[in-house]
Each structure stands twice: as structure tokens, then as C-alpha cells.
């Protein structure tokens, strides 16, 4: 197990290095620059800024300098605002993580429950209703859903303020973020639950007189969860990175809009920092998913 984890960590470092190199050279290759503005930057000012941030050096030198600083824990400053990047990323990540984790917990619990109900009531009305709503949930883009929620709960019913700086309300963004994964988890749980219920061991357990509750929750559900876990790992990393659309509509200072804005602005240092940070997150999430397999399915052997 330890050997396996060690190997995976090593692989992870290599992947992150590759991601960082590709991102660095790709972002430098696309047209545009961090000091482009509607009112053009004075050439003397631009030269001063380029020399301050090493942008006047060849791209490969810039990459080496950047990675050198990064290894010493220096994530640099934003080319757009001159702000330190690391505190910015961590505070924005905290916001995105709070929302993302709440949304995932919500999506997972409801998804598994609905999926199980759908499987157990197959072809009856609860199943049909669930299928209907999960189809809707998968099909509806988050910006439509977020706008609808805003319209209904903030403007029509007036239950929740659109904007409240001292006490922001996270219910609507959590719902917006969780609907898609919830619908997906429901469908996934239903399919694999149906699959599990038809397995021989379930039939055997049933024949041996195991109670229905124990049969469903201990025997069938545990096996049915493996695909769900496979989905959850990357999905958690994805949702933790924040959603630009949901963040913009509900005015949330998360990582999603920061990432997109940094690309529009060609804020190279921020693009790099967010990419590397997200790559680390993704790699860790995948590793944790693989370890979680071990606990749900003892047949999985890390040594082979």
C-alpha cells in the first residue's frame, strides 16, 4: 500500500511538472499580454513592468525562474493588481471549497437516496418522477438554473436577498452547484443498484433469509457505490475549483471566476498559480479515490 502511494505521488509530481510546462508555454504563445488596456500603456511603463516581472527574458528562462521561485514557496504577485497570489488563492479556495463540499455532500446524500429509491421502485411512479427530474437536472445549464433560482427566491418570493455583504446566503449557489452531480449520482446509483440486486450473492442472501433492509443497505448498496466513488473523486476536484457562472450570478469571490479572469487578463503568474494549484488538487483527489476503492472493494489489490 505504502509502495503504491509512493509510486503514485512520484507520478503526480511528474504530471504536475508537465502540466505547468504546457500551461506556461501555451499561455505565452497566445496573443495578447498582461499590460494591454483600452488606453495603451506607456512604453516606458511597460518596459519597467516587464523587467520587474522578468517578462523581458526568453520564455524558457522565465519558466526556469518561475519554477525556481515556486520551489522556494514564492507564488509571485499578480501582474494585474500587484497583489500576492498565494493568500489570494487560499482565501478564494476556502470560499470555493466551502460551497463545493456542501454541494457535494448534498448531491451525494440526495443522489444515493433517490438512486436507491428509483432502483427499488423500478418502473413505478417514484422511479419515473426521479428519472424525469434527473433528466431535467442533467440537461439544464447552471446559468439557467442559477438565474431561475435568483428570479424565484430573491425577486419573486423575496426569501433570500440578492446581495448581502455582511451575511451572504449560500443556499442558492449550493443548489445550483449540486443539481448536476446530484442528477448524475442518482442515475449512477440506480443503474449499479439494479445491477447489484440481480447478482447471485444478493439472491443467495435473500434465499438465506437476510432482512430486506440489510440486503439493500449492506449487500447491494455497498457494491453499487463503487461507480459512484469513481465519479466522486474527479467531480470533487472539479467542483472545488469553483464555477465562474454561479460565482458571478451570486457574487461569490471563488476560484472559478478568478481563473477565467486571469486568462482574459493574461495575468500569467495567476494563471500558473491557479493551474498548478488545481492540478495538485486533481491529483490528490484521484489518489484518494483509488484508496477509497480499497475500502469499498477488498478485491482491489494495489500490489498488482
Amino acid at each position, binding site marked *: 500500500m505504502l509502495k503504491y502511494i509512493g509510486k503514485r505521488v512520484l507520478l503526480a509530481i511528474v504530471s504536475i511538472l508537465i502540466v505547468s510546462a504546457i500551461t506556461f508555454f501555451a499561455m505565452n504563445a497566445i496573443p495578447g499580454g498582461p499590460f494591454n488596456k483600452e488606453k495603451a500603456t506607456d512604453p516606458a511603463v511597460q518596459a519597467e513592468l516587464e523587467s520587474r516581472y522578468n517578462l523581458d527574458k526568453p520564455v524558457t528562462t522565465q519558466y526556469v525562474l518561475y519554477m525556481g521561485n515556486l520551489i522556494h514557496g514564492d507564488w509571485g504577485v499578480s501582474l*494585474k493588481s*500587484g497583489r500576492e497570489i498565494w493568500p489570494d488563492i487560499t482565501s478564494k479556495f476556502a470560499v470555493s471549497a466551502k460551497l463545493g463540499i456542501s454541494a457535494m455532500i448534498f448531491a451525494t446524500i440526495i443522489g444515493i437516496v433517490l438512486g436507491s429509491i428509483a432502483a427499488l421502485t423500478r418502473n413505478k411512479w417514484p422511479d419515473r418522477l426521479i428519472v424525469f427530474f434527473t*433528466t431535467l437536472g442533467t440537461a439544464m445549464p447552471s446559468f439557467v438554473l442559477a438565474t431561475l433560482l435568483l428570479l424565484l427566491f*430573491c425577486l419573486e418570493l423575496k426569501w433570500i436577498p440578492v446581495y448581502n455583504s455582511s451575511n451572504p446566503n449560500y443556499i442558492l449557489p449550493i443548489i445550483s452547484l449540486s443539481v448536476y452531480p446530484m442528477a448524475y449520482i442518482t442515475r449512477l446509483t440506480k443503474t449499479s443498484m439494479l445491477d447489484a440486486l440481480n447478482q447471485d450473492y444478493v439472491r443467495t442472501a435473500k434465499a438465506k433469509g437476510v432482512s430486506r433492509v440489510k440486503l439493500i443497505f449492506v449487500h447491494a448498496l455497498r457494491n453499487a457505490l463503487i461507480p459512484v466513488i469513481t465519479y466522486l473523486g474527479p467531480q470533487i476536484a472539479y467542483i472545488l475549483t469553483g464555477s465562474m457562472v454561479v460565482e*458571478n450570478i451570486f457574487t*461569490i469571490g471563488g476560484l472559478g471566476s478568478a481563473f477565467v479572469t486571469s486568462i482574459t487578463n493574461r495575468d500569467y503568474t495567476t494563471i500558473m498559480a491557479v493551474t498548478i494549484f488545481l492540478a495538485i488538487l486533481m491529483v490528490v483527489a484521484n489518489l484518494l479515490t483509488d484508496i477509497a476503492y480499497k475500502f469499498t472493494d477488498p478485491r482491489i489489490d494495489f500490489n498488482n
Partner: protein
Amino acid sequence: MKKKVLSLLLAATMVVSLAACGSGSKKSSSDSAKSATAVNTDTSTLYVNIASEPDYLDPALNSSVDGAILAVNSFVGLLTYDESGELAPALAKEMPEVSDDGLTYTVHMIESKWSDGSELTANDFVYSWNRAVAKETASDYAYLFDVVARNDDGTLAVTADDDYTLTIKLTAPCPYFNQLLAFPIYMPVPQAAVEAANSDGTTPGAWCQEAGFVSNGAFTLSEWKHNESMTYVKNDNYYNADNVKLEKLNYMLSADDTATYAAYNSGDLDFIDSIPTDEIASVKDNDEFHVVDQLGTYYVAFNVGSDLFSGMTADQANAFREAISLLIDRDYIVETVGQTGQVAADSFVPEGMEDGNGEAYESSYYDADETGSAKAEDAIKLLEKAGCEVEDNGDGTYKTTLNGEAISIPYILNENDGHQKVAECIQQDLSVVGIEMTIETEDWNVFLDERKQGNFTFAREGWVADYDDPINMLEIFSSASGNNDPQLGKTDSAAAPDWSGYDELIQKIYAETDTAARAELLHQAEDMLMDTYAVIPIYFYNDVYMQKSNVSGVYSTAFGNKYFMYADKSAK
């Protein structure tokens, strides 16, 4: 069968949800047109939205209009703008004394304090201004100090004669220097804090990147939730604090029109600076809707070095561009796209500017209300003069060719609803004579690059003045300017106009000591620019905002700055 029923049900639900969406937005907009929207009754705090997260709060480093709004409400310089939009003394006791030759300004200051209670003296200005122009500060607006003379050591010729007297020497008389004294880059910054946060000289703006920094304006920043909100509290040490009624000023940091407009309608915001284009028609008769003049011009520009003009003489290229200018129906654009009463432009220097000689600067190069298809015949003559062949198809349409080939003009713009609609109007206008215009939407950053480098034929443009003087509009087309997107004087194309005279004119304007002669030179420069038709003015900007009926005392300048400090909010 069951599947069919299910899919029908699904389709029905989607239709219902879409309909709900549509009727919801309609309802809110028609509501707002008829009656006032919900108000916020927290009278101690004004809730506003200007834009998303600002880049710099340092008045010397800011280069955006939204940043300038934050600056004028949290810093104050020697002069400021009053409610009528006129310049007024702030930290200056009275308007500056100007020497007879117009070269020396003497400012007597009032005694005032920084927000931390320390004295603010003339030396703070000497420091702040020299810091603003220092190379290491790398300020975009440092060039606004070009009018100030330099000492032998390169520092600005600005001296603190005593704690409250400042003497400024200029290189040439500058009719708009008092306006500069109210500009954010001329505001003071606290030396000790600035230097403490910038020990190695590479982080000039670091001193005001979090809440709690020292300033001298009406409000100081007490809380900053990045990308969410900023809360400013009243600064009791502000020189005019007695007239500040608000306790707090809260900015919602968002550039999402849907969110800010919803927050305004729900009463969570008292003031919004942008309104979704689709909602303008429904709110413009509302009392909460305000339009103020802005000194700026929305225009389109041709790249004079573009391949489109290859083979033409400079005169032919001018005639071609003039034809395009005549064909663009400005009134239609203003009415259908602008919608807020913008004025169709007949010159590049916007209506309402002063000439620096105490008079209004007036110029007109064509009848802006008479452009469009009505001018098709004149345009056709010009196209023929440019070497094009125009064939009448006999059904009211024309076919224009150049050297036997159909003409197709690529037009670039950045992604934006309004710009897109303007482009479509122009496309339609040009089709009258059978000229095709293709619309190419580009990523904002790429768009800026392409325009600056001259990698385009025809492009969307706009310029809002920083101060009320035509030089601010005209100097951007000198050949050395980074904003000279039409590439005037930058290309060796034989079809491009000779531009050396323009650069000379701009230099003459900078050096001219007689204001009447200077005003004349400004007109000559604009004549020369407009003769090229490389710059095609569409309309003069105005600025719209919405403000609740229970709010009063907010005012705006023609440069887009909003002054919230003297706002008052009643409970109803």
C-alpha cells in the same frame, strides 16, 4: 407509449420553466417602469455597484474609471468637483494663484489630516507627485505630469514653501492644469505607509491592498471581501466631514449585469452604474433612471495601412473611407442600440468640450442626422472617385467592385452585445451599396493587441477624455502614440495620408503660450484628422445609472466619476 408520455411531460416542463423565466423578467421590468422599485431603508449605508474587483486602490496606480470612482471617494486632492460639475477647492484654500505668464501656480492649503490623525502638509504633495512619476512606480497616468517642469535632478519643479503653501512650475501654460489638480494621480498618498510596504521598490501599490490603509478622503476602507464587497466607513478626519451624512459606503463587487440589476430591483442596492442593454427600453422613463453627459466618442476606425487600400492613392483611400462614413446611419444606431439619448457624432472632439480659451469647442464635419442610405448617391460618387465600380442592379441595390472583385471589409470588435449590434447596423448600411462587411469577434486581450499592432482593416473604437480639453482627444493620433490604432504616420503604405504635419501641430499645441492661438491649432489638428476619414465618429457617449428615489446628493462628472460622499438617504 410510456416513453412518449415522459418525453412530452419533460418538454412541457421545459416550456413552462422558460415561460416562467420570460414572464418573470418582464414583470420585474414593467414594474420598474411604472413604479419605484423596492428601497433599502438602512439610511446609514449607501449600497452601490460600480464594477467588479478593482486592480489598484492607489490613486497613482489606478488607470480605470471604476478605480477612479473608488479613489475620489476615499482620497482628495487640492481641488475637486462640486455638485454642479465645476472645479472647487478641496485641500486648497481657494483656487490656485496663477502667474501672468501662466507658468507658476501657487496653492495655499487648508490644515487637514490623514485618516490616522497625522497632519497632511504641502510636503505630502511634493512626495506623492514625485513618487507618481518615478520610474519604479510605473504609473500609467504619469504622463499627466508632463506639463510640470523638472528640476535639474529630474524631480518635479514643485516646492513646499511652508507647511501649507505649494508652488508648481509648468513647462508651458496649461489651460486644463486645474482639472489635473483634481485628478486621482494628483492626490496625496501617505509616505510612511507607502515606503514601509515597498521595501525593495517592486511593490509600489502594496500599502493599500488590504482594508485599513491610511487615506484622506471622505471614506476609509474598513473591510474588503475580494470579488464580493468593499465596505468604507466615514473618515472623521476628512476636511469636509461635517457634510458627510453617510456612516458607510458599501460596494458590491460584480460586473454581472443580471446580478446587479436583480440586486437593485430587490432593494439590496441603492445605485447601479450599468443596466442590461435589453432592459434600457423598459426603464428609461423611470424616475430612477439618470443620464449624464460624458466627454467621449464612440467611433470606428480604418487601418490606413490596410491591404484594402493598396493600389489607391491617399486621396482615393480618403474618398473610400468618406463614402463609408456617409453610409453609416448614426441616428439609427443611437436610437436602436444606444437608446439613452446619445448624440450622433459629427466630429471627433465630443460636444460640450471647452477650447481652453474660455469658449466651447465647436466643430462639425457633416450633418450627422443625414447619414445613412439617404447619402447613398453621394457615397457612390465617392466610391467611384476611389476607383471602385458601382453597378446599379436595377432593383434599388448596387454592386460595388474594386479591380473587378467584390469588396469585403473585415470588422473586428470585442465580445459585447452593444458593440455587436452596432457592427450589425454598419454591416446593413454598407450592404446598401453592395459592400460586404464581415464581423469578427475577438477575445478582449487579442482585440487590443490587433488594434494596437495594426493587424486589422476596420475596428470598433472608443475614447473617453480624462480632462476637458480637446488635446486629450487629439494627441492619441500623433504617430508616436500607443493609442493611434488607425496607424496614422506609422505605415509606409502609399495610400496612407502624410502625417508629419499632424505631429508638428500637436507639438505646437503643447508649446503654445497664447490660448486663442492654441484653440485655433486644436481645430487645425481636428480638421486634419477628420480629412482622413480614418476615424469615423458614431456618437458621443453619455453615462447612465439608476438611483433609488430615497437617495439624493450623488453626483457625477463628465469623465464618469461618481461622488457618493455627500449622499443622503431617507427611510422612504
